[in-house]
């Protein structure tokens, strides 16, 4: 399904731009990159248009009971809809889309509700429900991952990295933010 460009992952890394948690992009030329801990990134590709996109989400879905101001772009259900809609808006057809998905590492703590596993499960189930074939995936394990999506060929590259000091700091920030989203909001009474 993907076209072999003959370039290496390193070549594409030099050309790529990065998306952060909650980010997404649809491109026809420039490679898209992201760094994952327990988050998941899904790459979508329309082979007819030679157009691809990628998202990066932190949680499977927006939590019930969380405040309305929860950062919904970080939730998988929102992130997947936004990405598919962006692809469709640029002319893609849903029945042509194929997916590759990465991430869901469990690298901060085994008792943190295995958020990586839940993200991976969510992505797999969501794609199956929507009838989008998942042609490649690399999920789980105690690694961070750098993912590159090449939009005009459908190629995807994944580099697993052991968790060193620098990566641990990024992952901890990601985990802290996720925990902050889960914390109940305090209702304040405003007096006029």
């Amino acid at each position: 399904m993907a076209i072999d460009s003959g370039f290496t992952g390193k070549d594409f890394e030099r050309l790529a731009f990065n998306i952060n948690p909650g980010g997404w992009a649809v491109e026809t030329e420039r490679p898209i990159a992201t760094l994952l801990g327990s988050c998941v990134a899904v790459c979508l590709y329309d082979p007819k248009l030679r157009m691809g996109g990628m998202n990066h989400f932190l949680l499977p879905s927006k939590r019930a009971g969380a405040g309305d101001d929860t950062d919904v772009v970080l939730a998988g259900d929102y992130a997947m809809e936004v990405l598919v809609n962006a692809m469709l808006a640029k002319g893609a057809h849903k029945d042509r889309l194929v997916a590759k998905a990465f991430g869901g590492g469990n690298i901060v703590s085994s008792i943190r509700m295995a958020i990586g596993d839940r993200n991976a499960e969510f992505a797999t189930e969501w794609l199956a429900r929507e009838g989008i074939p998942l042609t490649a995936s690399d999920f789980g394990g105690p690694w961070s991952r750098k993912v590159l999506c090449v939009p005009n060929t459908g190629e995807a590259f994944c580099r697993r990295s052991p968790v060193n000091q620098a990566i641990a700091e990024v992952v901890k920030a990601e985990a802290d933010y996720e925990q902050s989203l889960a914390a109940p909001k305090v209702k304040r009474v405003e007096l006029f």
Partner: protein
Amino acid sequence: MDKCDILKTLAAEAGRRDLNFQTHAAVTMRVRRALDDPEVPVATVAKLIQAEPVLAARVVAVANSVAFSSAGRAIVDVRSAVSRLGFRNVRSLATAFLVRQMNAGAKAGPLQQQMATQLWEHTSHVTALAHVLARRVTHVDAEVALFAGIVHEIGGFYLLSRAVDYPGLLEDDPAGWNEEDVLALQGELDRAVLRALAVPEPVMAAMEAFWQGFLAMPPRTLGDTLLLAEDLAPVASPFHPVNDAHPKEAADAATGAAASIEMILGADTLSAILKESAEEVNSLAGALQL
């Protein structure tokens, strides 16, 4: 000296072709050199191999492994084993043996021995997987993949062989092997040792891709073959330890159970191919570990 200084020193030594091998590796080096001549008679090669009983046993065992014995006839002599395997594979096995011998003569402490054993187990699994993946998935030359698997962490073996000269190197902060600068220097040492051993350019190119670490999904090159074999290997390298702050993940990762990698490959899937090839992989890995 810290890890970085030691790795720099060893890489510089190797860069001057100043590899400090143990003396009994000389026999194996003679075998490798003899095999550089494509016209050398099989009988001569067999005679040289027989001078090193463990290498001779390994050559026969690999010739009888499922990966090479589809006809099923058991081989019991070195000459027939060399004929079945071909010179390129015998040369790879001689290199594998040389790699192990790098460690054998040193006054190895228990930790060094343990790391050497783990590194060899890791290497044999990566080698066996690379051989099968080359034939079934990436369709690159399986013999070259076998050789690349054998040498893919050669710097680690060299480091272990020299650890006795740097007390505390192995004991000091195992997680430190994962730091970015240390990983880069491990690559430098691998590169220097491979060049000192005159490893062919296609394998060097694959190793460059391996060090960069980006696995194309689906995989297509020799470098991808090595990366995928590394990801699938059930035993981790002691020089790429898993985050030991989380014992469950570490244990899972060490047995290959921590992550799942899957892809559609034509009419098949990676997991189906691996299931079908399990006996072949285990047989070859086992023969290499004799």
